[in-house]
């Protein structure tokens, strides 16, 4: 079972738009709220009001400063959760089969009742997508809200991961990458979606849309055609104005 399916019927995952994410952490907390109530054990918060609060989160937002060789430094907000890799090393290392990738949609899950809490899957994941719950002592990870996306108790347009539903800026998209006509496939094509750590050869399903080129308004030091003065002094300006007003 921890051998990976050769091909999954669908390839569900997320597109995360780094050009749009404002770093608000809405996805982080919505994810926490849904997943602590649903799939498997709660996501514990230890020392919750204390000196060193540590909780289990399945999605976290980093931020990075990027300083180009020439030009202005940029700040990029960077949400990261499980990428549901096609060649998921976290699955193959699992000794018990608790960690598995679903045949039907490629979602990588942990069957908590089989998890011995050895942590090897987290070791194997280069992305830091798995966290051992400190109370339940089993591995927790993004389920792509498998208990939402097929959940018939939810309205059809709510059958998407909690993080996608809540994202205020619309920086997160959910869909089937096996379908070239899906929104996620199109976004990846149009915006040049990329893999994280491609050299790790995990073939992540989730893709990231890189920030669009920034700070492209070039300084205009002499006369910009659009800013050509119609007059230099107030009286000549009135003269120009009168001509314009006649045209209105």
């Amino acid at each position, binding site marked *: 079972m921890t051998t990976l399916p050769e091909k999954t019927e669908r390839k569900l995952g997320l597109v995360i738009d780094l050009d749009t994410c404002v770093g608000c*952490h809405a996805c982080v907390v919505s994810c926490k*709220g849904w997943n*602590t109530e649903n799939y498997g054990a709660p996501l514990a*918060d230890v020392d*919750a009001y204390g000196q060193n609060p540590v909780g289990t989160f399945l999605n976290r937002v980093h931020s990075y400063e990027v300083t180009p060789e020439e030009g202005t430094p*940029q700040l990029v907000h960077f949400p990261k959760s499980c990428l549901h890799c096609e060649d998921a090393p976290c699955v193959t290392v699992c000794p018990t089969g608790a960690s598995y990738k*679903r045949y039907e949609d490629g979602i990588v899950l942990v069957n908590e009742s089989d998890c011995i809490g050895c942590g090897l899957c987290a070791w194997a994941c280069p992305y830091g997508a798995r966290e051992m719950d400190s109370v339940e002592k089993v591995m927790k990870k993004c389920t792509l809200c498998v208990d939402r996306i097929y959940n018939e108790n939810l309205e059809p347009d709510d059958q998407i991961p909690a993080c996608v539903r809540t994202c*205020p800026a619309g920086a997160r998209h959910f869909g089937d990458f096996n379908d070239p006509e899906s929104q996620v496939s199109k976004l990846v094509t149009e915006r040049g979606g990329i893999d994280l750590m491609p050299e790790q050869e995990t073939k992540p399903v989730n893709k990231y849309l890189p920030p669009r080129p920034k700070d492209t308004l070039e300084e205009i030091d002499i006369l910009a055609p659009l800013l050509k003065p119609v007059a230099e002094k107030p009286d000549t300006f009135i003269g120009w104005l009168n001509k314009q007003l006649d045209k209105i």
Partner: protein
Amino acid sequence: MKDQPYLDTSPKVSDEIRKTTCYMCACRCGINVHVKNNKVSYIEGNKDHPVNKGVLCAKGSAGIMQINAPSRLKSPLKRVGPRGSGEFEEITWEEALNLATTWLKPIREKNPEKLAFFTGRDQSQSFTSFWAQNFGTPNYAAHGGFCSVNMAAAGIYTMGGAFWEFGQPDWEHTKLFMLFGVAEDHDSNPIKMGIGKLKARGARIIGINPIRTGYSAVADDWVGITPGTDGLFIMSLIHLLLKAGKIDLAYLSQFSNAPVLVDNDTGLLLKDKNNKELVIDQKSGKLVTYDTKNISPSLTASHNGHQTVFYHMIEKYLSDEFSPESVAERTGIKAGKIRAIATEIARVAFEQSFEIAEPWTDFRGKKHKTMVARPVSFHAMRGISAHSNGFQTCRALHVLQIILGTVEVPGGFRFKPPYPKPSSIHPKPHCKVTPGAPLDGPHLGFVHGPEDLCLKQDGSPARIDKAFTWENPMSAHGLMHMVISNAHAGDPYKIDTLFMYMANMSWNSSMNTKGVIEMLTDTTDSGDYVIPHIIYSDAYSSEMVAYADLILPDTTYLERHDCISLLDRPICEADAVADSIRWPVINPDRDVRGFQSVLCDLGARLKLPGFIDDDGNAKFKDYADYIVNHERKPGIGPLAGWRSKSDTGKGPPNQKQLELYIKNGGFWTKHVPKNARYYKPWNLGYQNWAVETGLYDSPQPYLFSLYVEPMRKFQLAAMGHGKQQPPEHLRERILTSMDPLPIWYPPFEETVTDNDEFTLHALTQRPMAMYHSWGTQNAWLRQIHGVNPLYVPSKLMKSHSLKDGDWVRLTSIHGTITVPVAEMAALNEHTVWTWNAIGKRRGTWALDKNAPEATKGFLLNHLIHELLPSKGDGLRWSNSDPITGQAAWFDLKVRLEKVKPPSSSEPVFQEIKSPVEPGPNIILQGQS
């Protein structure tokens, strides 16, 4: 399927969804509260809600940790130890209300002004002000004065509304969006949603902000402006656009006071005997009132030497004083960059314009076949507003929008009903005190000249915060940040009882925190407190609790009734009028009561006229009763929904109103007709619809005020004209600051500081995941933001040999703090900043006394005084905008030096004895 484990992919989600309104910040999003076994199990955005359309921010989703927070107060408390000790005894509600009545009744009978009633992050201001008005004290306001009154007032005076609650960019059509100084605060989800829409279609966003985080991080272009110079930058844009003729002349002529003639002698606008502004009709050359049918007001004509407003603008803004080269150094923006931005604005506004084929008729009867787009839009909030030059800067931004013709047109800025609402139809401030009787009218409003100021017969301030005085004549939201300082100083007079709600004045909501704590605990020679009584209502164990004598514990937001009323700060959209409610989706498990219900009770005990019936009995059982049955005017009450069969927004009280709101998801909307969607101030379609909906009594078309005449009236007084005269020491300042056309002057702190010593600007912003999370240090959110380093620009890190985690001493003219640092490259080179209000005092919010918030977190507030340094004239000069009194938080200048790491950030405050038990060590939310 093969050997996969069985998985139930359709588990039951919850027993029930209860739809109410969020209160984790001021956005007022609609939320679906999932309830399982009568406990809240999950909170998500309400898809049908006009504000958030289903999305929800980090704070909103973390609400579940707010309602279970250990910091919740559990019963009324009476102070037994000294103020600040945190020693209380629990008392019953009856005892608490009796005590409050004993204090308040004599005040009302003799000197109602000796009650200062100030509410902080109150979303029921139309109610709390009604209570205060009935009590008869002039001393009421909410937190606007230390928040963003410059933006609000500048917007109202200039064009009848500003950003956020007043209006929004036309997210659907705008092609260039400029975001000034807005950090992550205010209108949080709608702006994120708007940015998302722009990003989806690749529209350009320009962020003007010393700090490149949040929205400025996703901006296509970032302008790391020097704090306090936004006005100069904007005026330079105005200069370039005017000079190039890239302005909307037709718009200016028809919809603004650009063509109105200015009296050459007085600087007042020429008006006819009905007080209507006069213009010259381009076609006939005649002097006519601005609203005469079918005229074309001339921008250039003159009349007996009286020139148009536009003429004066040209004179002012074509001056080289505003050329890019002149402002480059001061603003820290290269001249070429300013040109590039002006070019981009001009290009998009005039070359990317398009038309929407929607005929409409203006107030002069002129029929327009289309609506013409100027797809450039702007947004700004506290960043440009919280400076002592903030009002004029905000004015400049509105003037920029108007000369481009981008207000109320497709692609530009759009008002949200009940706005637009010009300053002239807003109430004026009232302050006439009659012992034992209500005040003569609403406290807050818009002055139109010296005659509207709130002064006593002897010319001294009528209000404790000195709002609406010569010190800050247009202080439309009051000056909450001055209340304690003035009450302590007895300037203008002493008070008896300070009554506050949701305002953490002994911590992050005050400038000069340490000083305020001293004022709250200071005693007279006879050993009494200088401020004799303090009543405070809060739901949580905040820093302020310890400084009150009587605590009235409030409920959390899911346990109460509330209304987000059109009479207050509504939740409307550009295309719809809307209001909403909160209702108890869970019941309190403690002996607490909603503050507004408590006020209904207290009002009845005090026999306030609005709160008793003809027999002298309580008129309202609770706040819910008030919401349904109170009428401000016949047919107009707190909620507009379901008041009549045709649901116009007006009508008699409907006893089923709250039920109907709940059934509808907690809100009510009524859509603006298609032909009324743009040009609202002049569009007859809109004006008539607004009357029908109860927003106006009659159509109120008006002109945008590029030139704000009331300001000129104050200038005239300062020059010696008129009966009401300012005190001598203020004449000069009024004359220079209250220019009726936007100007720029250096922030006050810079003028009294050695700028060679204090070379750095220091700012704060609220992180998106925390901003306005006034409730408590939330168990989930505090993991995201549990400490706040001081962010220091890379160059400065290097020159001071600092690395992340080192500590510095930060010093202003007022004080010193010692704090940890972190490096930031995308930051104005002369600016340091931190996240606001992460720092907490030991012993508060039910946190461990060694919580990082207390040991490493810190406030910049200690460096900021509510007063400017003494000028040696014996006067107390407030550190506020001279026009509105807005607290000048962001004028702060500092210097820094590296120090050895102390054991915790400094200053260190004594631990407060917690009035609540500590929280659980482990939280397993969702454990069944």
